[in-house]
């Protein structure tokens, strides 16, 4: 790759942008293969390699990078970030035509090269099609995208995160230059405040206000910390931003540092995101080479350094004070607030802690203005939000919608409805700290205040859709077991309370629940919610409280009727022998420790469910798969 040269002034930055834009324009075709974790696991590397081979075979030169114009026939080939439609990966995008190829396999490389690169036409079979067979050639035609508004993810999938110049071509770092050279720190804070941006990590605290608190504290040393711990199971928004457009995060942090008066920043990334860490390191190195990060940015007086700290596997470190403790090298245990990080944070210094998505929004706000940001979303929750849509929907993946989009639109218009065709039951929003929303909430706008009013929260943005084959009590139990495992153990309410709640939920799903368990469960839940030290504890009972509110009958069914309405909980199922498959060999009867199986050789055996202890030994032993749990 052509080495990145140092940029010594905002004017030079503008020059470089023009140069790169022109170089990209001069490139007849760019082939971008999705390089997000999901697609990488699903085969992107093989696809890229195959395309490279095919190009060689057809004597099509490939550019070393986007600015090397040595050969005018050379095309661009590289990894982009996650375009969000993970359901249909690996995704290959062809620019500038913007063809959107899905489920690409290495075998397709030949056709892509001959038909598209050389022939200039789309490969029809690689395009998405509607139910009536209408092909969607371009990405913007695809229904999944039509209802989205991409601000934060605008560059994901279109640029190569491994080359800073691609980002610069899309006005990257121009916001930073404007802020550093054209605005006072107070003006930056004012713009962000005016925009109404609220923390995208979950709490939704007004970002500008937080920056304002930190800015006014007198201290020679301050810090900017990015919370990239994204521990919510089912959430991968921050991951995709870091993998797909890490520079947006860096730029946002630098602007924040300038605004509050910090010269150093930390990105705390969970260790389970090795690809994100790698992309960030590359981005930091290139930004430092380009003079856009480090000492005397763009030749000006402001310096800012960013370090990466890897998490070591603790969900609780997503809580800001626990995160700070972890950076300091301690157990990730939260601290009481006050004092707030704005006054005393990392190493006791004033610190701003914000989420990845929050920072990624900042450059556009500075570039386009607060009013532009307010043109999306609602009055009190402006802007967009990236959600991770998973579960029983047709289209799973990352989506970005204006705040205030209704739940129904997300699930049905964008998500495409329930994959199994079964009835919609609920959506868990906000992961293990979140609440569930039901049919009754389909018209609810997804924004901070509306969700709060129904006892839910936006959280990190994980949306898990469930149909009626999912037992909601089991969902509550699952989330509680997660929270229990991740509780740091410092305060008695979370440590012991979640343990006891989990015990009760386990009793219920295994058929041993009693009616008084529900009131005890509620009592503990409220105490944990109101008395815990940190956000993890305070929100741990949310799944329990909201499922008890909306699905109390389902709990009672387990306890009183001895039935799991969704048909999921194994305790309420029985082992049965499938007559058609049973060969009458009697092996199962021999294995049964309580002699619950009887029958005659060569004819189907029978299990006496009143004796059966559900150990499963029979099912394990059967060589004909004739025993099932139903």
């Amino acid at each position, binding site marked *: 790759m052509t080495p990145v040269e140092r940029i010594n002034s905002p004017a030079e930055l503008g020059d470089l942008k023009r140069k790169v834009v022109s170089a990209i324009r001069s490139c007849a075709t760019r082939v971008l293969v999705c390089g997000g974790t999901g697609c990488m696991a699903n085969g992107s590397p093989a696809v890229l390699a195959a395309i490279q081979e095919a190009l060689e075979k057809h004597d099509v030169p490939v550019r070393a990078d986007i600015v090397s114009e040595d050969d005018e026939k050379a095309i661009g080939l590289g990894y982009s970030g996650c375009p969000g439609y993970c359901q249909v990966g690996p995704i290959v995008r062809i620019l500038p035509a913007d063809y959107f190829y899905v489920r690409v396999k290495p075998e397709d490389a030949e056709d892509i090269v001959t038909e598209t690169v050389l022939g200039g036409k789309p490969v029809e079979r690689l395009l998405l099609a509607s139910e009536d067979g209408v092909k969607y050639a371009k990405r913007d035609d695809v229904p999944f995208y039509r209802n989205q508004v991409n601000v934060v993810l605008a560059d994901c999938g279109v640029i190569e995160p491994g080359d800073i110049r691609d980002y610069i071509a899309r006005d990257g770092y121009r916001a930073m230059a404007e802020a550093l050279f054209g605005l006072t720190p107070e003006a930056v804070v004012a713009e962000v405040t005016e925009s109404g941006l609220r923390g995208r990590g979950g709490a939704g605290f007004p970002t500008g206000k937080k920056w304002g608190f930190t800015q006014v504290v007198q201290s020679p040393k301050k810090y900017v910390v990015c919370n990239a711990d994204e521990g919510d199971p089912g959430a991968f928004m921050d991951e995709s931003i870091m993998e797909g457009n890490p520079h947006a995060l860096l730029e946002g942090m630098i602007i924040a540092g300038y605004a509050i008066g910090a010269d150093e920043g930390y990105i705390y990334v969970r260790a389970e995101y090795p690809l994100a860490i790698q992309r960030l390191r590359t981005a930091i190195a290139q930004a430092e080479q380009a003079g856009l990060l480090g000492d005397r940015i763009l030749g000006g007086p402001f310096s800012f350094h960013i370090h990466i700290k890897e998490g070591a596997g603790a969900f609780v470190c997503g809580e800001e004070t626990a995160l700070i403790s972890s950076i300091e090298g301690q157990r990730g245990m939260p601290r009481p*607030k006050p004092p707030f990080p704005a006054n005393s944070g990392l190493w006791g210094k004033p610190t701003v802690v914000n989420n990845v998505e929050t920072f990624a929004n900042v450059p556009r706000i500075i570039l386009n203005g607060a009013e532009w940001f307010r043109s999306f979303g609602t009055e009190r929750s402006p802007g967009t939000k990236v959600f991770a849509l998973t579960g029983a929907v047709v289209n799973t993946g990352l989506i970005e919608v204006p705040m205030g989009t209704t739940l129904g639109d997300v699930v049905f218009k964008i998500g495409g409805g329930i994959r199994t065709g079964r009835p919609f039951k609920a959506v868990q929003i906000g992961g293990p700290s979140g609440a569930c929303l039901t049919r009754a909430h389909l018209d609810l706008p997804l924004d901070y205040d509306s969700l709060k009013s129904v006892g839910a929260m936006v959280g990190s943005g994980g949306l898990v859709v469930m149909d009626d084959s999912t037992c909601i009590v089991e969902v509550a139990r699952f989330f509680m077991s997660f929270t229990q495992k991740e509780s740091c153990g410092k305060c*008695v309410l979370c440590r012991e309370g979640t343990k006891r709640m989990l015990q009760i939920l386990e009793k219920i799903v295994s058929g041993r629940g009693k009616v008084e368990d529900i009131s005890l469960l509620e009592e503990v839940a409220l*105490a944990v919610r109101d008395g815990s030290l940190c956000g993890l504890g305070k929100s741990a009972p949310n799944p329990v409280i909201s499922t008890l509110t909306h699905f109390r009958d389902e709990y009672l069914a387990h306890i009183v009727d001895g039935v799991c309405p969704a048909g999921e909980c194994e305790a309420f199922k029985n082992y049965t022998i499938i007559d058609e498959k049973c060969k009458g060999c009697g092996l199962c009867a021999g294995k049964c420790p309580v002699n619950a199986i009887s029958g005659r050789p060569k004819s189907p055996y029978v299990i006496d469910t009143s004796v059966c202890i559900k150990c499963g030994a029979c099912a394990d032993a059967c060589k004909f798969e004739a025993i099932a749990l139903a």
Partner: protein
Amino acid sequence: MEKYVTIDGVKTPINGSNNLLEVIRASGVELPTFCYHSELSVYGACRMCIVEIEGRGIQPSCSTPPEGGMVIRTHTEPVMRIRRMALELLLANHHGNCQTCEKNTRCRLQELAHKLGVKTVRFEEPGSVLPIDDTNPSIVRDPNKCILCGDCVRMCKEVQGIGVLDFVGRGSGVRVSPAFGKNLKDVECVYCGQCASVCPTGALTIKSQVDEVWNAINDPTRTVIVQVAPAVRAAIAQAYGVTGGEQAMGKTVTALRRMGFDRVYDTSFTADLTTVEEATEFLGRVAEGKKLPQFTSCCPAWVKFVEQFYPDYLSNLSSCKSPQQMFGALSKRYMADHEGIARENLYVVSVMPCTAKKFEAKRPEFTVDGDPDVNAVLSTQELINMISEAGIRLADLPADSMDLPFGFKTGAGIIFGASGGVAEAVLRMAASGDGASPSEFRAVRGLDGLKEAEVTLGEKTLRLAVISGLANARQVLDKLRAGEANYDIIEVMACRGGCIGGGGQPMPNDMSAREERKNMLYDCDAIQPLHNAADNPYIKECYSTLLGKPNSSVAHQLLHTGYRSRKRIHGEDLDLTDTETGEKVPVSVCIGTNCYLKGSYDTLRRLIDKARDAGLAGNIDFKATFCFEKCKAGPNVQVGETVYGGITPDKIDDFFNETVAPAARSRSKAAESEVDKCLQ
């Protein structure tokens, strides 16, 4: 401009309090807490101190700074509900029977469960029982009773600067534990017992020797002698509502006799003896200008601390035993010589404010043919237990006096119980040789953790440091190592405020209790007719009939000792020669990886050979040690108190001739100093 908050409807001034909890308590509302301790950092975990603040919801009061205008309610329904639930959850995890627990009637969990009206525990007790650690002589650790308040963790780390205990694991599996789940005796615990002092439940308690002592008392073949430490009388006064340490001591003597002790003596006597020996040693060192600053050595936790963390300063420790041990050695000798009681029929008990003294009594060097000089150590708490068991109402007893000769003391011996006392006792004696001598050195008094003073005696100006709390000791020692501090004599007591705050003292053992006890001791001192240890007639008799002179060889044999470096985490001491310090030069070679790779093992072997050849093996104490942390300069060898780098095998000859041999030779000429000046 005074600021006010409203507490339960009552306007209350903030009065400079740092947190809401103190404001609320000062206003007369006793908020419950487990994890709050005014001397430790705020932890905020127990959630008992929560209150409702208008506009802010439920907040912990220990960590919230008061702001003028706040409206607080301390016992709303949700707050009470949460407190009860927190207690219920703690009780559900709490193993064991209150009735048989060491902390019965003194446990905060028990107290709060009762006070806050917890009437039922609806959760199952956990099935498994965690192992109890009672393998060390001083402290019993029962994790089944731990409520994870973290007070012990913070006390050991912040005030004692060691950090033996920490939280381990995560979530409901969190435990408070030493490193790697080991027992306290296998890690760097110095047994100061401050952790037990702050533990609200029975998770950390003092190891009881009450039964052993009763057995000895009931054994007709045994003559049971008891010595009572100075700090004990002050605590007894508080515990029984008796005015003044002297009164309390008098009643305690009566109680002890009624319980069956054959002789009752005062540790303050041997404190006087320690003063004489130590002051003599000190003046000797000052004259020679070597092994300074001198450290006091009567605190066993402090001694273990030095052995573990600052073994390069072992030779700075006074070689004097502690008063407890001097008493044991001396009294057993005396009883044998003067009353014909054989050693095996003697049973010496000491009553101490301290838990580390139990460890000290068991040190192998404090035995004669396997028989320990001090047979059992009772903490003040245990003494109170015994008094209760015997049904004695101490406050109603008449006072009685101690036995002679060891019951006679000067005020200098009594003040050993307070931080600054040893230094002052030594100064009083050292100053007396100069004629016009002050009998008070107030600069070294008080509960502060670090006190410095300069005292001019004749032409000399002595710089003293008086330290209590081992974290403060660390600071000073680190400065010494870095060459940034200059003292002649340093007194260190492991417990803040001195022995009056020892781990064996009854609760409450907070700073205000210690302040009261300290004042009592200085009052006792003021009442005594004699204030200079050297004036104690029975001490003089001791020298004339037995010891000869201070620091004489008899004195050395009975009253002095040596020290050895210890691994912090258990393991063998890599002693290659089998002796103690004292009169030998310690030579230590680092065999950490870096030094090892540069040939340090060869260095060590060759030094030993050369010493043998030169006939100096008896004067040198060779040790192999791990890591002076000067890896770049390796191999590193320490001679006396200086570390030399770069001693590769080829440099051995010169190094031995120029540095090691002279040190060994001068050691055998013990400083015959201006001893006589002090004793008449």
